[in-house]
């Protein structure tokens, strides 16, 4: 790859990551400035201030009400690692996020690992003749689990005294199973796979040498999407399982109407989602080039 081409790819990847984030940040600032009560100082209600004093307070708050000024001052803060101060917790947002990121990271890692392992292995087992009789049971179980809200799955985990990550896995696993099962079955119907089977290739070799490689791009895309699903599941899970992670922080911020904190969490999660999706896109492209 030439330097110019590498530069072009890097610029494209960065712009597809940074531009949506900048746009999301602007939307977030717009939402904050439109929120009821924003830009109003409680000192305005204090009788001890004269009319002139109240007017001065209002004048000092005026720049905050301007969306563009607020946005650029927010960006300036972000470039210095300052995400503002949480109203509900009265602490810097960065500090709160740092404290809780590890808990959420562990929940996500456990959930994604168990969910992927279970979904992938069960979908693979459906392609093996010896185990294919169990497939209807897996389809029924995954269907039933898709009907359960993540909060209820978290409740089940609390009752069983299991790890919070298990509830995240209960949200991820059935989706991975359904998608992988469809992919593998479609792969199994392809002409070259049928031909290989007719020639007497074993189920394991069919799966590893023919079906997995053809399903790989879609599975990589699913890996990117599954991060987003897991992040969505992590809020009710952390709330119900009482784990001090970012999901629980977002819930507390929503209940306390702590918009600066909520917006920063939303932007952070958006960044993680975008990175996961772009990484999977790049991997798929790299695979495509290698195949060519």
């Amino acid at each position, binding site marked *: 790859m030439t330097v110019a081409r590498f530069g072009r790819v890097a610029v494209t990847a960065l712009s597809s990551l940074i531009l*949506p984030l900048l*746009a*999301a940040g602007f*939307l*977030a600032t717009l*939402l904050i400035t*439109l*929120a*009821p009560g924003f830009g109003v100082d409680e000192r305005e209600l204090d009788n001890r201030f004269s009319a002139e004093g109240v007017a001065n307070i209002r004048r000092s708050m005026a720049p905050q009400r301007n969306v563009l000024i607020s946005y650029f001052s927010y960006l300036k803060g972000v470039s210095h690692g300052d995400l503002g101060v949480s109203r509900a917790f009265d602490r810097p947002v960065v500090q709160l996020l740092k404290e809780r990121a590890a808990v959420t990271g562990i929940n996500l890692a456990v959930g994604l690992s168990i969910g992927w392992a279970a979904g992938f292995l069960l979908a693979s087992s459906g392609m093996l003749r010896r185990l294919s009789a169990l497939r209807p049971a897996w389809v029924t179980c995954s*269907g*039933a689990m*898709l*009907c*359960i*809200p*993540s*909060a*209820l799955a978290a*409740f089940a985990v*609390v*009752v069983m005294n299991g790890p919070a990550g298990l509830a995240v896995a209960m949200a991820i696993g*059935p*989706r991975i199973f*359904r*998608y992988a099962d*469809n992919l593998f079955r479609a792969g199994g119907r392809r002409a070259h796979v049928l031909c290989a089977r007719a020639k007497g290739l074993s189920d394991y070799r069919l799966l590893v040498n023919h079906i997995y490689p053809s399903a790989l791009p879609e599975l990589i895309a699913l890996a990117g999407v599954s991060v*987003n699903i897991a*992040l*969505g599941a992590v*809020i*009710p899970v952390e*709330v*119900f399982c009482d784990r001090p992670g970012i999901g629980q922080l*977002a*819930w507390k*911020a*929503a*209940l306390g*109407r*702590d*918009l600066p904190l*909520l*917006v920063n*969490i*939303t932007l952070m*999660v*958006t960044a993680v*989602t*975008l990175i996961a*999706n772009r990484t999977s896109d790049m991997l798929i492209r790299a695979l495509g080039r290698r195949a060519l």
Partner: protein
Amino acid sequence: MKRVALVLVSVVFVTALAANLIAPAGYEKQFRDSPNARPSRQFPLGTDELGRDRFSRLLYGSRVSLLLAPAAAAFATLLGATLGLVAGYAGGWLEGLILRFTDLFASMPGLFLLFTLRAILPLNVSPGVSVCVTFSLLALLGWTSGARVVRAAVIQVRNSNYVLQARAMGCRPLRVLFIHIAASLRPVAATQFWLYVPVFLLAEANLSMLGLGVTEPLPSWGNLLSELQNYRAFLEAPWLLAPAVLLLIVLGSLQFLFADREVGQ
């Protein structure tokens, strides 16, 4: 199995619609002499801590969830289909703009964004408004997949023979778009609609269980399930899971009915 599923969904739906006739009491009527009562002939699912009949609340809650989730799904489908239709037909910069906007919405985490939007709303909204707001927000954030699917379908159709013939006969662009192309997209829109319904039912359940969806005293499946936050209460009163069972029946039946459309994926 599809017939059984259809019967089950119909029974739940009709029962929910006829809640006024079937329910032994109103959803906010309090029986102050019998709070936290166990199931009995008078209260088939017992009463909650405020003495309200859980069975009546379940019937009214089913009506809220089963009427508003399809309404939100219809709104999301309409929004996504309109944007997808315009993007697919217009092409060029307008298509690019709509796609970027769609990508932006799709990349933002739905539940986190819902929290943010919900937190912006005034605190003193009535329960009725909170229901409408919850489902409207779900629709406003959930239209993106519909827009992409409809756009892809329009691109396939826009150069087909009947569209070219309509154009050659002098049909105006808006007529071609909304009469000829939109008519052929009905199956795609219907599929999107039925994919949205279970997603919105689950999202409402999650939001209301977290106390950020439908507010008291109005019942919904989600806020009825929020009683489970005290999980020790469930061990003594497993009938608290009745809304979850109904949710499972309805969503499971929808999966059977629309198995070929991959509901829930």
